[in-house]
């Protein structure tokens, strides 16, 4: 399969560094374990505010030396006191530095409008708690693949031209979340763009 050849021609990606945000002790412990088993580096914080501090987005300019701790994925609970997961998502997408980091929302409640709201704001995926190992593995593969797709764009110009041509014509049915109807995701959010990119590569 062409994709496998393309993927294997790149050096193995370094470990993903995931920032997990959840106000629940129990859930933080569980998500940390799930991520570590999936060979990710994990940093857990207990609130959206702490997450912003960690990223250096809280207005405190003293923490700008965070380049070494590059975060590849943010996984956050939706319902948290103070900044909700949704509000955290918005702040990240508003940041020119961090908006490219995929953000995944977790929630114990399967509320359709909430899911759509998050996906529209640019969430990569929406996971229903309790989060399973399969969810995390799928997520990791998604992030790794789109990371490689980004790499391909910068290192290999000709496939990029083909990809960009197919950009508009590819179908937008997404494969990621099983908790929302893909047909409502036609808008050009960042996450659906990434999805389109993947689908053209697989063609």
């Amino acid at each position, binding site marked *: 399969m062409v994709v496998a050849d393309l993927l294997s021609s790149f050096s193995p990606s370094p470990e993903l560094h995931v920032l997990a945000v959840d106000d629940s002790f129990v*859930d933080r412990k*569980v998500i940390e374990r799930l991520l570590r088993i999936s060979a990710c580096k994990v940093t857990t914080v207990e609130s959206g505010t702490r997450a912003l501090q960690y990223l250096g987005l809280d207005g405190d300019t003293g923490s700008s030396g965070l380049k070494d701790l590059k975060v590849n994925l943010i996984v956050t609970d939706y*319902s948290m006191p103070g900044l909700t997961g949704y509000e955290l998502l918005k702040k990240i997408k508003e940041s020119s530095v961090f908006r490219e980091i995929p953000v995944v929302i977790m929630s114990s409640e399967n509320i359709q409008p909430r899911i759509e709201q998050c996906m529209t704001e640019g969430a990569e995926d929406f996971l229903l708690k309790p989060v399973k190992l399969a969810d995390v593995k799928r997520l990791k593969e998604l992030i790794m693949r789109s990371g490689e797709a980004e790499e391909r764009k910068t290192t290999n110009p000709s496939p990029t031209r083909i990809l960009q041509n197919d950009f508009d014509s590819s179908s937008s049915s997404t494969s990621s979340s099983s908790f929302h109807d893909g047909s409502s995701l036609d808008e050009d959010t960042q996450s659906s763009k990434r999805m389109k990119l993947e689908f053209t590569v697989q063609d």
Partner: protein
Amino acid sequence: MQRQVALIKQSLFDQGYLDEQFMALEELQDDANPNFVEEVSALYFKDSARLINNIDQALERGSFDFNRLDSYMHQFKGSSTSIGANKVKAECTMFRDYCRAGNAEGCLRTFQQLKKEHSTLRKKLEHYFQLARQAGPKETARRPK
């Protein structure tokens, strides 16, 4: 001894104290992390004791702040779900239903039941983990290497 551990675990599932989430957590254990579930469980009971205390105090005050109670219970239900505490979770759901209906008496009644279930589960899990430790690593579900 290992058979005893297996039987205890089976009965906890059969009687509905635990659900498949507990099994999912056991599958995350390995030689490097052989006590993961016990650690999560300890965290859960510590955390839920705090919540029970908060709720007790809120209820004792007499004035029913249903929003606050519901918020506590949302947390309680969340962590109960994460550990697979099936019966406790069910009581949390019922409590929240009463909160939304503004039914103070229903809340009080359900909370008593919830505390009972919580206490029962704690004792049963303590017993289970104690035996499991004595029996050695074979009985708990393991993640294939």
